[in-house]
């Protein structure tokens, strides 16, 4: 198979993007190494995009970048265009302090990992809501009515929760209260950075279901960041896979789960623990992901990739169009179908050889 027929592109576009990220990079040492490396991606209006990657793959950095809130002294470059419902698109990175302050939480809001540490421990939850409304010159009374409704939507008792201090709530309640707080100004986009990481499995599932309801009711666009691939697969419309600070694969959830074209994604799918599968079938990925100061040349995955060849060691691959809006940043995406079998697919689903698709 030759590369000549291969279509490739810088990024996979969507029809009606609400946020367009182009070549977003974050560096902490003025360009010697990157903790987010040339990420380009579109967030479609009204979709749920799941961003998956292991710890230290740059996914939280991507979330912070969307609000131009990269922790100091990080330097963020590239463009992040926000397209409001009506009106002209703005580059978030060009906004002045006051406009940025208005954009955050009013247009793009964020739920951090660890709700337990996202509230001021010496302030009641009501105060958190009120001061947020006041800071954005909103009508406090109407805003608090919205807060009540949001808390009810999240199956919390509004009055009880609002008069509580953070430590008086359980982890799951704090997480839901934080989601309500992030939605109190009716934002268009909700960025969630590992919102369920500190919760038990049952709570994770129930919060995901609630998020789905909220998304419908409030017409939200969501970017959901997690390291838990099966979790987000149940929720997301599309999935984006990150490895070593770069985006390496993006496509419809269905597509990614069943026809992942990047060797890393396939290995990731195979390494997912499954209660039903016997232990022998567990396939951890050999080696470890690179640190930002020690990035390999070419494709960052090549030291661990069974398909790596000379080109992978020297060139960083673009997105290769696998099918429709499914892109994979791999030169050998065709070979990966045959070389790396997906263990979670039973034989019925593999009736059509994957290499013959398209």
């Amino acid at each position, binding site marked *: 198979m030759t590369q000549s027929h291969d279509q490739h592109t810088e990024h996979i576009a969507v029809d009606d993007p609400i946020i367009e990220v182009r070549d977003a990079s974050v560096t902490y040492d003025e360009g010697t190494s990157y903790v987010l490396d040339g990420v380009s991606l579109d967030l479609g209006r009204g979709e749920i995009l799941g961003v998956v990657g292991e710890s230290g793959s740059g996914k939280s950095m991507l979330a912070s970048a969307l609000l131009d809130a990269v922790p100091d002294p990080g330097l963020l470059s590239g463009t992040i265009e926000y397209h409001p419902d009506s009106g002209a698109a703005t580059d978030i990175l060009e906004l002045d302090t006051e406009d940025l302050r208005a954009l*955050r939480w009013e247009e793009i809001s964020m739920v951090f990992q660890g709700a337990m540490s996202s509230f001021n421990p010496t302030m009641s939850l009501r105060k958190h809501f009120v001061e947020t409304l006041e800071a954005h010159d909103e009508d406090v009374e109407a805003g608090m009515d919205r807060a009540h409704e949001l808390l009810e939507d999240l199956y919390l008792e509004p009055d009880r929760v609002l008069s509580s201090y953070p430590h008086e709530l359980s982890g799951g309640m704090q997480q839901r209260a934080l989601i309500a707080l992030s939605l109190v100004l009716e934002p268009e986009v909700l960025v969630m950075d590992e919102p369920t990481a500190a919760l038990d499995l049952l709570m994770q599932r129930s919060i995901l279901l609630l998020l789905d309801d909220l998304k419908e009711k409030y017409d939200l666009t969501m970017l959901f960041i997690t390291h838990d691939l099966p979790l987000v697969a149940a929720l997301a419309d599309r999935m984006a896979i990150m490895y070593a600070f770069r985006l390496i694969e993006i496509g419809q959830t269905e597509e990614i789960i069943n026809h992942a074209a990047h060797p890393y994604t396939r290995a990731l799918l195979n390494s997912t623990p499954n209660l039903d599968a016997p232990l022998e079938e567990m396939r951890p990925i050999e080696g470890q992901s690179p640190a930002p100061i020690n990035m390999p040349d070419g494709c960052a995955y090549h030291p661990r990739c069974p398909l790596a060849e000379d080109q992978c060691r020297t060139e960083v691959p673009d997105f290769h169009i696998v099918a429709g809006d499914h892109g994979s940043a791999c030169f050998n995406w065709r070979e990966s179908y045959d070389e790396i079998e997906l263990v979670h697919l039973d034989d019925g689903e593999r009736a059509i050889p994957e290499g013959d698709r398209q």
Partner: protein
Amino acid sequence: MNSYFVKRTGRAILTIWLVMTLTFGMIRLIPGGPIEMLRARLIRQGVDPSRIDAIVQTYKQDPTPVYVEYYEYVTSLLSGNMGQSFYYQEPVSALIVDALPWTVFVMVTATILLFVIAILLGALMAYHEGTAFDTAASSASILLSSIPFYVLAIGFVVVLSYQFGLFPARYRMSPGVEPGFTVQFLSNAIYHAALPIASVVLTQAGLQALAMRGNSIQVLGEDFVRVARLRGLSDRRIAVRYVGRNAILPMYTGFLTLIGFNIGGSVILEQVFTYPGIGYYMYQALINRDYALMMGVFLIITTTLVVSVYIADLTYGLIDPRVQSGGQSEAY
């Protein structure tokens, strides 16, 4: 309803009772005593030994059992009677009532002042962490903290009082000034207290400023500060309600106990400045073997410390919602 309150009160009372009892026991263990002192004085005066025995005999009371003495000691203490000062020939309680307000004035003012300075300086250092200002302020704090307050106090007396005559070197106020709510009295009292206060503030503020700096840096790194910034809160509100409040809270107990400790530390400070507060009287009592006065001041000093810890325990719950009277069950 409030077992925490009952527990703390019980503990405070128990501590004070223990101090009372220990004082009683320890004084009894000190060799000698007023009668031995009297005998020694009479011998020095060359009085005839048989005459001495007779005089001593008149002072000697029938030996009372220890528990009766203890009972009388405790009951008179509870009725406010601390005995008669052997040296000043005045009731101990009268001396203390006269001296305590001055010591409290100096030490409470100093402690409040040093905490205000420490909180502002510490927060400023935290916000400018790593800058030249931070390094300079931290170094100065460490340097000043390593000087004992009495060394600085002696330096003040020698240089500012004797060499330049800028401040008085002794007493609570100038002769002829009448206590009262007059500008003259208040300014005169502050003028006399300035150097004692300054020596406490300068040598203790540094350590507290470093504590505030550390707390603030920790709070500044917390997620909730980052979330607050993203929520669009003003920097001022974040500095006061988020960083300030959470950084100051752990220092509150230290503040109240430091007041107690400083009142104990007045023994040396007031000696250096010849400032007649309770510390000054304690020193005089030690030199003159004035047991009653010694016991009285000792009791007052320990009681102040116990009371300040007690107040800290009881009020901490009011300022930190996370510590709501211990025993209460979790709300959810």
